[in-house]
């Protein structure tokens, strides 16, 4: 069954002066609203006619440096990739739209549990921390519903 919340911790590689503090990555909703595994979320109208799910992230213990934030979304039922993207970050947290729709061909995200994973890596690609949460996106119950269902169901 769905477990409440969300944090996975990995530890950076050690150095001669002793291991650095663990880097923890926590996920939440817009405005840091707590999210729980399996929670229903709205597909928010967004980028140029698309729909997305808002996710906030915060890395505890992140020292000022440029790190790579990799984000993926996979459908729980079959592990199909809905989104995979990455970018450089300097701040220890932020809020990002997880691009959902238009969905890849043949992959619906509407009412489907989607596993969102965020991970931080250093310049060498070594993973420093990761977090994951499963959310169930739904189309909004307004004038956008029909359009949402058309472009979010992989048709």
């Amino acid at each position, binding site marked *: 069954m769905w477990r409440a919340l969300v944090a996975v911790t990995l530890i950076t590689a050690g150095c001669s002066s002793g291991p650095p503090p663990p880097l923890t990555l926590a996920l939440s909703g817009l405005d840091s609203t707590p999210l729980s595994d399996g929670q229903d979320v709205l597909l928010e*109208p967004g980028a*140029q006619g*698309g729909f997305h799910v808002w996710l906030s992230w915060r890395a505890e213990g992140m020292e000022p440096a440029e790190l790579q934030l990799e984000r993926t979304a996979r459908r729980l039922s079959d592990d199909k990739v809905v989104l995979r993207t990455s970018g*450089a970050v300097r701040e220890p947290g932020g809020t990002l739209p997880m691009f959902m729709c238009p969905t890849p061909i043949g992959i619906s995200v509407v009412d489907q549990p989607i596993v969102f994973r965020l991970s931080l890596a250093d310049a060498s690609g070594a993973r420093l921390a990761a977090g994951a949460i499963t959310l169930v996106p739904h189309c909004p119950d307004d004038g956008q519903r029909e359009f949402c269902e058309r472009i979010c169901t992989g048709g």
Partner: protein
Amino acid sequence: MNTSGTLLLAAVTLLAPRLAEACGCLALPSPATNVVQAGERILFHKDGDNVVAYIQVQYTGDADNFAWLVPLPSVPTLEIGTDELFDRLGTTTLPRYTLTTTRNFCNGGSSSTKSSGFGCSENASFSGGNFNPSSSSDMNAASADAGALVERSSVGPYDYAVLKADDQSEMLKWLNDNRFFVPAGTDAAIKPYIRPGAYFLAIKLKAGESTGDIVPVIVKYKSDLPMIPIILTQVGAVPNMGIQVYVLGKHRATPRNYHHTVLDDMTVWLTTDSYNGALIRAAKEAPKRHTFLTEYAGPSSLMRNVLVPAGRFGNLATLRAISSPSQYLAYLRNNTYRFDPTLLAILLRHLPMPDELVQKGVTPLQYYANYDSFQQQLSKDAGPPPQVTFDPIACTDEIDMRIVTPTKKTQALFDQHPFLTRLYTALSPEDMTDDPVFGENPDLPEVPLEHTATVTIPCRGQSFIRSDQGFESQYPNLTAKLPASARIEILRDAGPAEVVTDNRKDIGDALGPVNYGDSDDDKQQAPQPLKPQTETPACGCRMQDGSGDYASVFLMLGALVMVARPRRKRPSAVRR
């Protein structure tokens, strides 16, 4: 229409006849006005959380009628780019088709000739208009009672406005009130983009600007993935409108919600289809007619030093100190400044053409390229010309701001992003129902520019061709009814391509059995059994500047000439 305008229209039309509006909507002055946009090309890259889109609008028509709408998810920043980017990208990433002809002589010898690649001329013959030097954005915040208006400003030759897209009627009213005209059909087309928190960018030429001043726009906005708002483009789009997309990133770009087609290169080698015709046919064969073809996917280093090779632009301090117009123009030429519409417009402003020459129909390009000759001619005709007032500092400042700095900044993109993907599709208005979005897949192979085939002329019998896609046929073979797609597939953000339609068998059947003829060394020359090369994606072949159609015919003719050459008589001594 003046000469300048005519030349510009001709140049634009010749250079990009099948490139099309691909991002946003060209708004027209009235529903009765015909669509006159010649094309558009887009380059996307990510910058942190932002998508950056370089958009080249190719438009033919009156400057007063030019207006352009782009839906955006956030308030954008706007800059002016350089035309040269797309010209250089187009030629540098153009697929190259090379046909090798091998002739097997009956005495046991053989010879090979190669006809390769497609040339591509550069657009050096634009003429300029009256360019307004303002290239800095005059940020005028919207007043509190401005309704949909968020920001109104200007950049380069453009006036632009950022409008809230949460109320359609309010936004359209603002556009109409402010002469950003909206064509019939826009109401329905913009509906998907009307929502709280969304925005529209509306652009038009400043009063007094000419269409020669239309330069690429760089739009930067917060978003995850690049998207082309093609639904809006259906307003005024023409059938089979071509869309050229370049994506810079870490990995090969993929069409997320469109299929992907691998062109059947045998349509290029064998049929009388134009390249564009083959691509359009391939696009039509895909489900929903939604597909992209990858023309190149590989290192972006292909473009390194292409825009700004070492020494280009010289030393601006030196340029600022040259007060002689003749020497100033010579310095520009010697340091490979491109006499494109942007530079010509700047020169027209700082070093105007004599009215006498304008009236004679001399173009700005002709004038500045042959400045000394024209000055001598004018002196001969009417005595020494009046002293020309020329401010090299002001002129150079503008050249720096409008040309040198943007070009260097653009060149740096290819150092920042290691991978470049070039994609193409053609869509008709009725098919513009889904906005294409682009992702990345690190698991996909590169797509090279080179495409090869070999025509073998045997000692006796008919020639045959073998392509690098693994197909072979008698040559020529104009009767084969070939599908234009070798494969139609789905590209994900990870993993290999998922093949939806594999036409290899149909293509093989259509090509028919091959008779390899007869020669002394048949054993050595006979092709090996056909081996499908599923891991080597093919790519489309299309001339970005419109000469591809001719190139294909040229190539075919070249090959046919080889086939038609009289065979060398075999000495009886070696006849078997």
